């Protein structure tokens, strides 16, 4: 047993236990807290697996933002429920058995997987042609840029859909101005902006990129919303909508110019490739942040008493 497994085995054990607690606990608040702690451990797991990119994304979205959303949803007034239903234990037990059996088959298959390196070699070989030196950025913004474009479309559409369903402009409830929170926000938010800027720039050569930078910036924005210092992007104002959809629009425009500039959709002329990628990533960073802030603002507005059929 090496030093690594001394960390890994307790980590894996705790993750399984927390996952169990997160869905078995009687109280929603306890379940939410278990889920958030599970997220923190997942960050460590990704780091142990040598995937810092995923770890940063997990920290910002999986734990930070999801945690805010969960706690915000719990804080919203809920309709009275007629006691905790005892449910149909037979059906639940059957489901649990089926899930365990499915999981066992999956693990058995995964353990028997052949050792393939996937596309690592191909990515390494063609990466210089993209102008960036981080393989993750190369895959996201060049080799599989089309997937990324559609994913950003999903995010922008999610916000537009939320705005449409919420009806009028969501107005987050004014928070009581707490001097401690206020001082915290004034110190942490500039740091968040700085980190986001670094992550965006770093994406070209090492772990980082638009998704990580955008979520860090988005979380900073969410802190401003939570402390009542700022509002989310406003659907009724032109610039609010432009912030949300701008990254997608720029990415799409550059992609559609591809057939004329470089002979294929989403192809970049090689001499501009790295600059175009950084430009797209900058726009995506801001739009991802705006989308995340909008979603939190929407949820807060929906949680307000007397809010319409939102969310």
């Amino acid at each position, binding site marked *: 047993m090496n030093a690594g497994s001394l960390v890994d085995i307790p980590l894996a054990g705790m993750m399984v236990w927390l996952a169990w607690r997160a869905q078995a606990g009687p109280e929603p608040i306890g379940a939410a807290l278990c889920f958030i702690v599970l997220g923190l451990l997942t960050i460590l797991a990704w780091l142990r697996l040598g995937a810092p990119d995923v770890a940063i994304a997990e920290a910002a979205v999986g734990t930070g933002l999801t945690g805010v959303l969960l706690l915000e949803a719990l804080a919203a007034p809920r309709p009275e429920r007629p006691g905790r239903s005892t449910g149909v234990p037979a059906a639940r037990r059957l489901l649990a058995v089926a899930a365990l059996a499915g999981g066992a088959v999956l693990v058995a298959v*995964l353990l028997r997987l052949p050792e393939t390196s996937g596309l690592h070699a191909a990515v390494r070989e063609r990466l210089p042609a993209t102008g960036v030196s981080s393989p993750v950025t190369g895959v996201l913004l060049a080799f599989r840029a089309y997937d990324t474009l559609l994913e950003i479309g999903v995010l922008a*559409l999610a916000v537009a*859909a939320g705005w449409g369903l919420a009806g009028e402009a969501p107005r987050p409830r004014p928070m009581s101005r707490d001097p401690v929170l206020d001082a915290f926000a004034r110190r942490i938010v500039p740091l968040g902006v700085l980190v986001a800027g670094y992550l965006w720039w770093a994406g070209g050569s090492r772990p980082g990129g638009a998704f990580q930078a955008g979520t860090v910036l988005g979380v900073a924005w969410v802190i401003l919303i939570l402390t009542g210092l700022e509002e989310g992007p406003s659907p009724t104002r032109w610039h609010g909508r432009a912030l949300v959809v701008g990254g997608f629009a720029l990415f799409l425009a550059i992609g559609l110019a591809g057939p004329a500039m470089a002979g294929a959709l989403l*192809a970049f002329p090689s001499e501009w490739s790295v600059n175009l990628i950084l430009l797209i990533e900058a726009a995506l960073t801001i739009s991802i942040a705006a989308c995340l802030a909008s979603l939190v603002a929407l949820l807060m507005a929906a949680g307000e008493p007397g809010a319409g*059929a939102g969310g």
Partner: protein
Amino acid sequence: MEGIDPWWAAAVIVGAPLTGGVLAILWGALGHVWALAATAAMTAAAVVATARIGRHGVIHLALGGWSAPLGIHWRIDGLGALLILTTALVAMAVAWFAASPPRRMPPAFWPPFLFEVAALAALFMSWDVFNVYVALELASLAAVTLVAQGHGKAAVAAALRYLLVALAGAITTLLGVGLLYAGFGTLDLSILSRALAGPGLVGWLALALITVGLAAKAALFPLHTWLPAAHASAPAPGSALLSALVVEASLFVLLRVWMVGFAHAPVPGPALQSLGLIGAAGIVWGGLLAMRQRRLKLLLAFSTLTQVGYVVMVVPLSADPRWTELAWQGGGMVLVSHAFAKAAMFLGAGMIMDAAGHDRLENIRGAAHAMPMTLFAFAIGGINLIGLPPSGGFVAKWLLIEAALNGGQWWWAVPLAAGGLFTAAYLFRAVAVAFSAGDGGALAAVPRRQEVLVLMLALASLLLGLFPAQPLSVMAIGAPTHSWSAEP
């Protein structure tokens, strides 16, 4: 048309609705203008692409210029091109319908509508299993949004249920896609197809997971329970798009995974037969439940289950390689003609709802006197769903039954034929009520433009039956071939 770079057609097909979606978010008040412009551009590009495929064969494009396995490929085959053209035409008609005053859809309708159209086109072109998953996500989110925009709390509940099923389906599909990449190191359908000649446990598990995930999204029996409430709750233009095309896109992907991805795998006969059983159950169950419905939109929603069942039949009916093309054409004809017919019928039902204030079957007595053109269109759509000549539905059913009989699988001809009887039973009841003597005067007037659009959609499904030769020959271009019976 010879000189046109296929890139331009392909770029416009996906780029126009995406651009329209962006504009609809930025300038929502003009949403209907962007939708009409985008769907018109898409239609033109789809015509160019189809004509080119007719002359030069399948269009193959590497996005970003990165060839597989590194990059993502588009491959537009004959059926894919026809489905894109169908999507563009139906979307244009739906957009025009939804833009008609006095009941023009609100600004919030247009972004999900346009993103949905783009996602459908992306699905019909994608040749990469992970990209298919991403496009399905976009399609599902847009579809759920369209459902939630329906009236009242019931629509929100139906949308939430749809969202949960769609998410479960997405995760299951993604697990299967992940297994394929882990096991075979590629996501490209052509390369996967060769690698999957020896699928092993990984390949079979991936096929099972992807099938279950897509079945949930395509509302295959027994994972169909979310569909009727969702499709009946959405506003009429949303229902038309959802029932005509969104379900069909997941089905098309399912056919591709089985018939292209696993074309060289030794797919066992019982697996094919059980997929046939799922299709047959959907045909019968959808028909039985549709007969019990007392609301027009619910009746139409249940009838979609029957049509979905027909399409799944393509896989077992392809078992004998000599009849694969016939089954593929039959399934393709169901997809294309059902899209036109169902869009017409849902829009027609929406007009009846607008005019009468409800869609309860017993109270639409005499509707045909107030809005004859719409009910005529509704009846033509019905002819297509039943599969009576001279509709596209008839040609489709004929080809599928022929494939069943020629391939020595006569038992599948029974549900294929019975589906038409069920459909006839409930549609005749609805049409008979509407055409019976009654107080049609109680109905409010409907815009003439909407009546004409519904009629044109219905006539399109009829034209497919009158002139089937050309569409069928296009569908044969790039149709899959397999070697399921071969040893690995």
